[in-house]
């Protein structure tokens, strides 16, 4: 016999069967008994819920997530300068703004066209 620990059970199969049977019976006892007796909503019997845990870090995390979501929403919904959103009742929309490279390229094409004529 091995003198070390842990010691093996006398009958592993029977022990497993006993375990499963006990679990079934415990689940049966759970069904007939109330899950919570004390402090259960809506009418606490003996008391109320425990004092709340400090949640400042949860609020901080929530604020960071909210800020990130706001920035993302602004980026996705903000009208781009090339396709300005129509403005009703205000000044006329600005013409599309092109990049400096694009403007130079367009000017050069225009200049060559004139020269060709």
């Amino acid at each position: 016999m091995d003198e070390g620990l842990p010691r093996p059970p006398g009958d592993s199969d029977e022990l497993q069967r006993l375990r499963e049977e006990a679990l079934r019976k415990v689940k049966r006892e759970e069904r007939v008994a109330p899950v919570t007796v004390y402090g259960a909503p809506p009418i606490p019997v003996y008391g109320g819920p425990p004092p709340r845990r400090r949640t400042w870090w949860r609020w901080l995390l929530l604020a960071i997530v909210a800020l990130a979501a706001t920035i993302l929403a602004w980026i996705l919904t903000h009208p781009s300068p090339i396709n300005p959103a129509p403005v009703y009742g205000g000044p006329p929309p600005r013409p599309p703004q092109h990049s400096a490279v694009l403007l130079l390229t367009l000017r050069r094409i225009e200049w060559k066209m004139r020269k060709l004529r």
Partner: protein
Amino acid sequence: MKRPPLRTTYAVWELTLACNLGCVHCGSRAGDSRAAELSTEEAFDLVRQLADAGIHEVTLIGGEAYLRPDWLTVVRAIRKAGMSCSLTTGGYGISQAAAREMRAAGLQQVSVSIDGRQSTHDRLRGRAGSWSACFRTLRYLREARVPVTCNTQINRLSAPELPLIYADLREARCRAWQLALTVPMGRAADWPELLLQPPELLDLFPLLNELAAWAERDGILLYAGNNIGYYGPFERRIRAGNAVWEGCQAGINTLGIEADGTIKGCPSLPTSAYSGGNIREHSLREILSRAPELNLNQGQGTAAAASHLWGFCAKCEYAALCRGGCSWTAHVFFGRRGNNPYCHHRALAQQRAGRRERLVLEESAPGTPFDHGRFAIIEEPTDAPWPDGDAMRFTADRIRWRAPAELHVIA
């Protein structure tokens, strides 16, 4: 909440019986060290033998383990031998520097015993200021990055305060909370009024269920000790691992070691009846293989393993798996194991039959470490009048859910 894997093999080692507290429920009547405690060399040799016997985790207890001057060298030896090492302490007199030294030595967890709010704890622990010291110790350990857990003895003084204790422990950022019922061993045997009576479990267990729900929500591991159970409707909620009780594991995967080298199957078992021998006379493997006291739970799953049961437990539907619950608890009430009065399933069954059980002290404890008295069970109708003069009786309406005006500032 994801629970950590349960330990496989475990030794609890009383490193010294010297103690700086005077707990009124101390099972080992700790105070002075034992006459012939193991030397440092003998302790190192035992560490080697524990590792060789397959032990994976060692918890150091006392008395107060850290009162032994060489205790950190023993911690280092345990870690070097490849075993986990933790400490259970009353938490009195641990300095910041000591907490850092524990971390440096490789101590992996410290469980601090907290038995109530300030006045109750100090009364039970026999020293004014011990409650404040516990929370100071918890802070020092946290600062030294040593994982901290707590343990609480449940008796008629501490039971009404359990929700408040929980709030304190959560505030102190404890990772786990182990609960155990106070039983009549050592000094607790001298004060039977302190002990819960079996019908009081009917009010206690719904409270434990509630606390377990809070702990689950807060990510704290609530861990019911081996003498809390068994198989009632709250079993899976309060037992770590969402499992059911599988019987006493003394000598199966657990060992207890007394400071003088006495080996038992469980640290709590009374020495006189469960000592398997001394490490100074025999090797650990010899004791494990030969001593009947270390083989008391052999043969799990066979009829022989439950043959020692008597009284209610012998006829119980869970008898074959339960084997009478905690051997220690049954033995210190009646002088023999196999009939456990601290059982929720039993109290419920008695209640359904219109009965209840009361325990009455018949024979006092002699006054030695790990001693016990002898109790008798009185069975009576549920509506029988409760004995006069039992002012400490625990009932649900005594539970203190909130601290009134005594909200404290944790040191």
